[in-house]
């Protein structure tokens, strides 16, 4: 019931690997780690959700505010390797239309 956040911040690309659950308890920590990365102009922030086994609307909220921040700061947000259950929430809420999600390689198995 926790979330591990591993950030590898290279030149112009930040890879954020998440493992665990994103809920009301862990979302603030994620927001704190993610938002500063989106504030560097030109940065591509790639979030890997392969090991995220659970997410709810608190996670959607974090990614929406990160997306807003990328628009303001001219950076880019990309979500990769989402598990089916997590991807489904983005689909139900219509967020797949506005967030760059690469679901060609699915997480989990």
């Amino acid at each position, binding site marked *: *019931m926790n979330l591990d956040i591993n950030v590898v911040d290279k030149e112009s690309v930040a890879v954020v690997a998440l493992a665990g659950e994103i809920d*009301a308890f862990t979302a603030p920590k994620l927001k704190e780690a993610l938002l500063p990365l989106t504030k560097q102009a030109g940065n591509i922030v790639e979030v890997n959700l392969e090991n995220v086994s659970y997410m*709810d609307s608190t996670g959607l909220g974090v990614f929406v505010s990160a997306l807003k921040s990328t628009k303001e700061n001219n950076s880019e947000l990309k979500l990769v390797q989402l598990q089916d259950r997590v991807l489904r929430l983005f689909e139900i809420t219509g967020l797949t239309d506005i967030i760059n999600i690469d679901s060609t390689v699915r997480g989990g198995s």
Partner: protein
Amino acid sequence: MEPFDFIEIKVPAKSDYVGVVRLSTSGVANRMGFNYEDIEDLKVAISEAMTNAVTHAYDDAEDGEVTVGFGVYTDRLEVMVADHGGSFDLGKVKADIGPYEQSEPIENLREGGFGLFLIDALMDKVEITSDHGVIVLMTKFLQENKVGLDDDQISTTQ
């Protein structure tokens, strides 16, 4: 009245305990025979209701509680999430509750953004009352086994 088992859990109104309620939900739903997909739906829906209760119910008081009640029926699971912290009588609460209307001005729940929308999308029935604290009552029906004994093939969807 239709017979049912009732399970009540009371937790502090803190986000720390959303995960605890989620695990309990998973346990109850699994015991009832819900399939994997439905259990995941239930986990999200109940976490959303818990998050709403935790985020908005106790802005002024730090020692609030959230009460979660599971009504276990043979064909469905009814879950109540109440942010008033007190115990409640399932029958009485159901008599007070009305259908959830999109136009209902429950400011606190609206602020949850996608939360209430997801509850509505993932559960079969959702009712909300806000007379004495906010109470969300959600129902999910057990899916009948779709493959009958007489069926000679199973269709799969890709």
